[in-house]
């Protein structure tokens, strides 16, 4: 059964210390508000995973939430380094973290194996690189056919205890619709034991059922649904608000030191109770700047049969 609730309740109900937590959304619909809530609830021993850790993992790592990180690109996109991630890996600050890394293709293949209950999936990457030497999860399988290649790399399933994803809209049953970059959302949801879905808008079931091809995660795999407008800020939601690039650039400055991040967290995460309070602290002008002009998709007729 899917429960409609708020993020504080969804996180505390779904997530236990020691869990593997995956935050879905490839460069789009990143669950920032959810990550902030995890920080606020002071988890200390999570194995966190994302293809693109982005600023949210920098914050969770600096806050001491993580003991291990699974990822494929740990950068501040378009800006540079993820400084807290680097400090943890290079200097063990605020605590050492284990890393488990892949290429993007390797990462999404692990989620896909997890989503479809396969012991492994083959893929044409890693050969000729140094990854297999440093990651025992990447193995080789012989090709049983008379074709090339004779052996091929495989990766095993990744099955998060909890996946948190976002969507533009869903109904109360958790049937979620996304447009724009859909990324790893479907695989991350199907691979997980427990799924928390946060949406820009909770809509009537009729809205979802009017366009079933748009549903990328079915309610039957969703456990908690949270309505949380602007919950991806400073990431974006296609058609709802743009990426706040200024915030990404500013993070490069804020994250120069662990202390700088701690101050930021005190003000923007620990210092507020909910994501709504966080939004209150933003300038109105930011909301206006980030709002795209409308640009509707040409309608389709599904037909009344």
């Amino acid at each position, binding site marked *: 059964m899917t429960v409609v609730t708020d993020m504080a309740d969804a996180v505390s109900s779904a997530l236990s210390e020691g869990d593997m937590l995956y935050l879905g959304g490839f460069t789009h619909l990143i669950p920032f508000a959810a990550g902030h809530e995890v920080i606020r609830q002071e988890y200390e021993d999570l194995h966190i995973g994302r293809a*693109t850790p982005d600023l949210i993992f920098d914050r969770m790592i600096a806050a001491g939430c993580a003991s291990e990180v699974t990822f*494929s690109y*740990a950068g501040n*996109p378009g800006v540079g380094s993820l400084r807290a991630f680097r400090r943890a890996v290079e200097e063990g600050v605020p605590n050492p973290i284990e890393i488990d890394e892949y290429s993007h293709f390797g990462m999404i293949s692990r989620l896909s194996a997890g989503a479809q209950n396969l012991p492994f999936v083959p893929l044409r990457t890693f050969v*000729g690189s140094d990854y297999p030497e440093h990651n025992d999860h990447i193995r080789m399988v012989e090709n049983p056919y008379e074709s090339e290649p004779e052996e091929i790399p495989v990766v095993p399933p990744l099955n998060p205890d909890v996946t948190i994803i976002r969507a533009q809209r869903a109904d109360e049953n958790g049937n979620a619709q996304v447009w*724009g970059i859909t990324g790893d959302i479907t695989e991350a949801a199907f691979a997980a034991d427990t799924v928390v879905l946060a949406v820009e808008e909770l809509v009537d079931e009729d809205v979802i059922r009017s366009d079933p091809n748009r549903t990328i995660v079915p309610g039957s795999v969703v456990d908690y649904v949270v309505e949380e407008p602007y919950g991806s800020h400073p990431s974006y939601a296609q058609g709802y608000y743009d990426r706040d690039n200024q915030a990404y650039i500013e993070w490069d400055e804020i994250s120069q030191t662990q202390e700088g991040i701690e101050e930021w967290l005190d003000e923007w995460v620990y210092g507020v109770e909910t994501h709504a309070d966080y939004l209150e602290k933003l300038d109105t002008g930011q909301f206006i700047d980030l709002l795209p002009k409308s640009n509707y998709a040409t309608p389709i007729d599904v037909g009344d049969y």
Partner: protein
Amino acid sequence: MVEYTDTELMITRAARELKNDDTVLVGVGVPNLACNYAKRRHAPDLEMVYESGTIDSNPSKLPLSIGDPVLVTNAGGVVPMLQGFQHYLQGGHIDAGFLGGAQIDKYGNINSTVIGDYDDPDVRLPGSGGACDIASNTDRTFIITSHSERRFPEEVDFVTSPGYVDGREGREELGLRGGPEAVITDKAVMKFDEGGEMYVETLHPGVTREDVLDATGWEISFADDLGETPTPDAEGIELIREDLDPDGVYTGTSD
């Protein structure tokens, strides 16, 4: 004589590598500018694919990341991440791809993972992202980078993205598609010889052989008919400065 920055030269030179019917996997920054430049100048049908799954993007403004919403609006398609890698990249539909990295060796192997020891790194870099996948499955890859000894060691600390591995034969035996086609720096343009080793094809105006040798970690060789890199024309510079990067995000500085 048109004035141009190093970056502008790199953009215009890289753009020349793209053909009208290519499907290119675009990176952000300079590669993105090079692709958009090619599309506006000589390759109007160039299909730009981003590793976020946007297909035939037509960005109205410069995207800061490979996943910006401007890559979706007015695109020909958007596919889930898995499908982008499986059908487009591994399926063999990507003709050209751009790669960057902290270190490139003489076989075009690239490191964007770590400086120093993997388990006890001096500098931890972002990692592969799609780079290893692109390097393994694209017909022609291009590397755009600044030129220094630090960036061009004889051997990289970690192979994130295989080039010719230990030579063209080595790559072929591993069953990898294509390989590195050109390296474009702020000093020169390098190609790869029959054995898969990097050599200098052209020097940028004002750059000497010694400048390149000093900035390369091994005794790089030079083409017998070593030429000079063609420079941007006035129209090209205007396109970059007025249209593609009006805020000078990438072209404002020369590195």
